[in-house]
């Protein structure tokens, strides 16, 4: 696919130019839900990165074995397996974060970024390139989550990683750590990215990155644009 052969290209594209959250508009649910604190954002991002790298490696090494017709269920099972693994690890070593992320840890399984990368990249590329792609995309996702979490924590509670910030902590705007603030901050961030990108980023979720594109073949777009 894009930048084939360039090791640095595979890794860096996910960080900035094709950032899955802010440019690709994928994985919105965890982005909004767990970013009330910067710490939770990083935890969620790293957990997703782990699952993404592992599933990309396994899927790209099994790409010749998996029949094309049933590849989506196969991908989902592989991903769900790694999600279960990270659930165990987190429950054992970081019980506090496990409780904070709650339901959304299991929901990594249906994160569009992971299935999207499996379908668009890992099932067509080699093991090494897929691992790098997963790492880049995962860290890009972590970066976006960290940014969201920091903004919401600083404005909403007046502290950052639990450290109080003078002046701000006297007047926290609690609405920013509530659901409404999440929508607002993400909207503003994407608008900022659009403004500085200087080019036209996708205005909506494109079929290129949609995990269901293989089954629906763009029908969803045809239906909505009638």
């Amino acid at each position: 696919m894009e930048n084939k052969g360039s090791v640095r290209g595979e890794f860096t594209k996910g960080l900035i130019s094709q950032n899955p959250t802010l440019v690709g508009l994928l994985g919105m649910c965890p982005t909004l839900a767990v970013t009330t604190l910067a710490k939770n954002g990083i935890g969620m991002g790293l957990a997703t990165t782990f699952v993404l790298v592992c599933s990309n490696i396994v899927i790209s090494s099994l790409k010749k074995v998996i029949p094309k017709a049933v590849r989506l269920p196969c991908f989902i099972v592989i991903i769900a397996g790694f999600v279960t693994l990270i659930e165990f690890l987190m429950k054992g070593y970081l019980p506090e974060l496990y409780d904070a992320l709650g339901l959304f840890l299991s929901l990594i399984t249906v994160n569009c970024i992971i299935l999207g990368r499996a379908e668009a990249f890992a099932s067509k590329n080699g093991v090494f390139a897929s691992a790098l792609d997963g790492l880049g995309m995962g860290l890009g996702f972590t970066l976006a989550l960290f940014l969201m979490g920091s903004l919401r924590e600083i404005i909403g509670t007046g502290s950052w990683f639990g450290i109080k910030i003078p002046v701000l902590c006297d007047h926290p705007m609690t609405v920013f750590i509530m659901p409404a603030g999440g929508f607002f901050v993400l909207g503003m961030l994407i608008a900022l990215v659009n403004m500085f990108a200087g080019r036209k980023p996708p205005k909506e979720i494109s079929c290129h990155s949609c995990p269901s594109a293989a089954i629906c073949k763009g029908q969803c777009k045809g239906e909505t644009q009638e």
Partner: protein
Amino acid sequence: MSYILILVGCVFVNNVVLSQFMGICAFLGVSKQIKSSVGMGAAVIFVMTCAAAITYPVYLLLEKFNITYLRTVAFILIIAMFVQFVEIVMKKVMPPLHKALGVYLPLITTNCAVLGVTIANIDKEYSFSQSIVNALGTGLAFTLALLMFSGVRSTMEHSDIPAPFKGVPATLTAAAIVSLSFMGFTGMID
């Protein structure tokens, strides 16, 4: 009474899209027109309710063998298979309904709201009938959010908003305002 509480809680107090942040992808992708919102909403209500009904006995089975940690794998497989199955049956038996809803069915497999509801049912230790009511309510809540937004978005299409805000940012900002108004329901049920 508890059923009514669960239903009201799902639809208004803890709206699945506006306060739980589940199914945002579908929410941003499909809420463009009223017609497609209704189609997607109906498909989600149907799949969600059935998924809750199927996963409940499956979880009992997992519990019996003491392998409840496999629930994520088991549930997502069941949902994926069920969606595929419904699509095949619908295509054969009810072609008009398939034409109306078929497009949305594959999108539902990766809708985190469906998996989310089945796992939440387990976490909240709901009984079988409570699970079904919860799933139904969540489906209704999803449809409500989608319908409300298709109205907002069709108006926004024709308004003059700054270029960087066009599309998703404007929708998210509008969602923030609606979510703010839904906060007014907080405290109705504790």
